[in-house]
């Protein structure tokens, strides 16, 4: 299966689970507090992922090695 395929499957699975629980008809609804947390969950996860991405890229950017010695050595070799 392609990566895209995997993502679509995963999203479909999570999406249907979320929809089943959060948008269920009155008879089958889970308790109120749970529902309140569940409804905005997708947005929370998206924002959390966004923050994680920024933090990771920022961290990696800051720790991106500058190889001074390698450059100097290269010059030396030349």
């Amino acid at each position, binding site marked *: 299966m392609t*990566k*895209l395929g995997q993502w679509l499957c995963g999203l479909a699975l999570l999406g249907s689970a979320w929809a089943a629980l959060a948008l269920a008809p009155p008879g089958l609804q889970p308790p109120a507090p749970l529902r309140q947390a569940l409804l905005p969950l997708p947005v929370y996860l998206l924002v959390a992922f966004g923050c994680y991405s920024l933090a990771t890229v920022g961290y990696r*950017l800051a720790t*991106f*090695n500058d*190889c001074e010695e390698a*450059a100097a050595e290269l010059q030396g*070799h030349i």
Partner: protein
Amino acid sequence: MAARGAERVSVLLPTYNERDNLPLVVWLLARTFTDSGIDFEIIIIDDGSPDGTQEVARQLEKIYGSDKIVRKLFLFPSGTAYIHGMKYATGNFIVIMDADLSHHVRLDFMYCGKQKEGNFDIVSGTRYKGNGGVYGWDLKRKLISRGANFLTQVLLRPGASDLTGSFRLYRKEVLQKLMEKCVSKGYVFQMEMIVRARQLGYTIGEVPISFVDRVYGESKLGGNEIVSFLKGLLTLFATT
């Protein structure tokens, strides 16, 4: 296990306007290999450089001998030089690298060391792990690089830390197999190689490398490159 003496490394060097860098690269390679006692050959594949690169290559052939330097002229779209060059390679390992001195040649023998250590099918140079890194990059370029790599890791989960690096060692049969399967060009070609290698179950070892900004000549990372990178990434995402 094959005796050391029976192994040979072919270095594929695609060139375009590298008349200043080429003698240095060849000299550094030759020295590294002879110091570590590894049999080698260097295949220079030129893309019709107008600056006299081919003349330089001809002179190098005279100096080092034609069993060590093989010259090819091939007008190619980026990425397919390797296919052409590989036909002439007589080694059982193939190294792909840039001819513009951005790859620090000292690390060549580390490759062979790493390859022996794990008997890997591919050894890939990574700028993002260990003491690998870059020199001469401004913040913007680093940001783009890290950002692009992050996106690649999330979408493709390739199991290798540096997909767009182009300093790698392959077993000859592995490279041939991958060449048959890969369809993209440029940066994306390098990425596709690793992704397909994973799919086919080849083992990949990583070695930190230093990417030193060009000693002579100019580098390119414009809007066009970014767009084609994204297109390629999405294509790989949807097709592998």
